[in-house]
């Protein structure tokens, strides 16, 4: 039953052919058998999962369930869960028990999902390989010597290895889409503000967005529906109405204009990735879409702008970890300064330290204008490129990543080489646009992701297009041999 999509499982649950307790037990058994090799879960909570499954079955029995009632999922360990440990992949929060649920957790609980556990991730969501987790790296289910991507690497590996029906993730520079591409699953980062950031541990607040990872676009539509909506507890939460994402999945894509940025197919793109993406685009053209070559001239500046803005915001956000109110506290501090410095020095890992330092530097007196302000101006230029492009096209499509999943250990000693993984994904974060990655083939036995980007608030268009693609392809239904 693990090889069924979430939507198929939901139909079986609704008809009574399948009980949530059976489904949950089935996944718990798989986790027991397969997680030790993958390390995709940081925490598995069997008791709470079984309790929630019993409650979900009762709700379904009474006919009060929705499409997510009784569906087992994993939460990225960045979402606060009341009474259950939330680590954010860091020693800093090794023993942190949040006093409240993230809004995303509450909303999905209200919809009746069953939380199996918390997914591994790069520490404080900083990374593209999941090698920065205090709780150890994660294996890519397709080839265990490869990384699953990051920072939502545990979430993507869980969905690919079918250790839950779906998982939540967050995306600051590509952290849902890049691991979705590397693990051969579907993931969507909605428009900035769509999903509440309340209780989602902050990395870079003007870029962070939560979203789902699942097997199919249809599954993502169901999850995103439950996750979206205005939240008065998040000051940047969107007031825009949330459409019915499932209602438009089957809309005809005839005449839909797809922009293909020439910059996305420049030098450095792995040949197998380029081939798979071009084949997928041709498939969409056969389905009635119109391909149009476009240019995003400032695309090359996205990484530099991002690596000023994200660390600057992170250095500010992570100042809250001071050894006083929550998190790790150093033993026997000499004075307050020693308490701050040693608690933070011991609690944070190397990549988090690098980003705090570069961020503090970029914001420091004398450098603010040259780095932070300049990066914000470039951010505006990048956004202007999209505004221009969307006058001509409805969706932008290209590869999610320049390569398929790289080897574990290959890039961990060179932070800046690691950053180039986000080449095609950071622009959507800088501009607050929705972006989706869907499986579109393989290169050397590893999954390739097709990225789709739409104008603000047009998630439904992305899900529609991805669903139509998945109706004429079966890449999303393939699973790693090691799953069985």
């Amino acid at each position: 039953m693990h090889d069924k999509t979430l939507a198929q499982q939901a139909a079986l649950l609704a008809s009574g052919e399948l009980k949530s307790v059976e489904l949950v037990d089935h996944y718990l058994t798989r986790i027991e058998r397969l997680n030790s090799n993958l390390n995709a879960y940081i925490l598995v909570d069997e008791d709470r999962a079984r309790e929630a499954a019993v409650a979900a079955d009762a709700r379904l029995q009474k006919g009060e369930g929705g499409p997510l009632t009784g569906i087992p999922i994993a939460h990225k360990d960045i979402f606060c869960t009341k009474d259950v440990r939330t680590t954010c992949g860091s020693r800093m929060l090794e023993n942190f028990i949040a006093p409240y649920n993230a809004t995303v957790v509450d909303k999905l609980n209200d919809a009746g999902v069953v939380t199996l556990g918390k997914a591994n991730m790069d520490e404080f969501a900083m990374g593209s390989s999941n090698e920065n987790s205090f709780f150890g790296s994660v294996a890519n289910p397709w080839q265990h010597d490869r990384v699953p991507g990051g920072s939502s690497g545990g979430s993507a590996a869980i969905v690919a290895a079918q250790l839950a029906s779906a998982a939540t993730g967050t995306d600051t520079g590509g952290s849902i889409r890049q691991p979705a591409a590397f693990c051969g699953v579907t993931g969507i980062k909605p428009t900035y503000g769509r999903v509440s950031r309340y209780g989602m541990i902050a990395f870079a607040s003007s870029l962070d967005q939560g979203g789902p990872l699942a097997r199919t676009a249809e599954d993502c539509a169901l999850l995103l529906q439950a996750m979206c909506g205005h939240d008065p507890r998040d000051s940047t939460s969107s007031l825009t109405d949330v459409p019915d994402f499932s209602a438009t999945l089957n809309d005809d894509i005839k005449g839909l204009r797809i922009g293909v940025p020439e910059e996305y197919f420049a030098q450095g793109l792995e040949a197998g990735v380029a081939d798979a993406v071009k084949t997928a685009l041709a498939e969409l053209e056969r389905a009635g879409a119109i391909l149009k070559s476009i240019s995003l001239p400032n695309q090359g500046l996205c990484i530099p702008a991002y690596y000023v803005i994200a660390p600057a915001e992170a250095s500010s956000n992570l100042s809250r970890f001071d050894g006083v109110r929550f998190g790790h506290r150093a033993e026997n501090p000499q004075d307050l300064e020693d308490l701050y410095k040693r608690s933070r020095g011991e609690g944070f890992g190397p990549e988090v330290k690098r980003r705090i330092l570069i961020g503090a530097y970029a914001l420091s007196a004398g450098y603010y204008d040259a780095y932070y302000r300049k990066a914000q101006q470039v951010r505006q230029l990048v956004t202007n490129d999209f505004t221009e492009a969307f006058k001509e096209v409805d969706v932008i499509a290209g590869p999610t990543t320049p390569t398929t999943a790289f080897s574990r250990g290959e890039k961990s000693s060179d932070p800046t080489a690691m950053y180039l993984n986000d080449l095609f994904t950071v622009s959507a974060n800088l501009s607050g646009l929705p972006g989706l990655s869907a499986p579109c083939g393989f290169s050397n036995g590893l999954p390739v992701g097709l990225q789709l980007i739409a104008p603000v608030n047009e998630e439904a268009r992305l899900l529609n297009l991805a669903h139509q693609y998945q109706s004429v392809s079966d890449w999303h239904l393939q699973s790693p041999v090691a799953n069985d």
Partner: protein
Amino acid sequence: MQYIMIDSCAYNQDRIRFVALTPDDIKSIAHLARLGVEEDALAPLAADLSSMLTLVEQLQAVDTTGVEPMAHPASASLLLRDDVVTEPNQRETLQAPAPATQDGYFLVPRVIE
């Protein structure tokens, strides 16, 4: 020591000269961030941060004259709520994760002798 010269930004008439970061620079930035860094980590961090600065350096070549800085993708202004009490007192719940508390206060090392 490596010096990197860059053009002045449009909004700044002075030419700014950037220096590749040294272990001493890391020490002072780490102090600003109240981040403990081991002595032997200073040199590798100086190299890593300098390479990050090289990565972002190409921003300086972009003409951004007259471009309004974009701080945020959400353009809507902040909302006002009614001026009524909405949150109950949850001091005990919220202090539960704290490493050290007493009488409802967070404990820190003595600041005033």
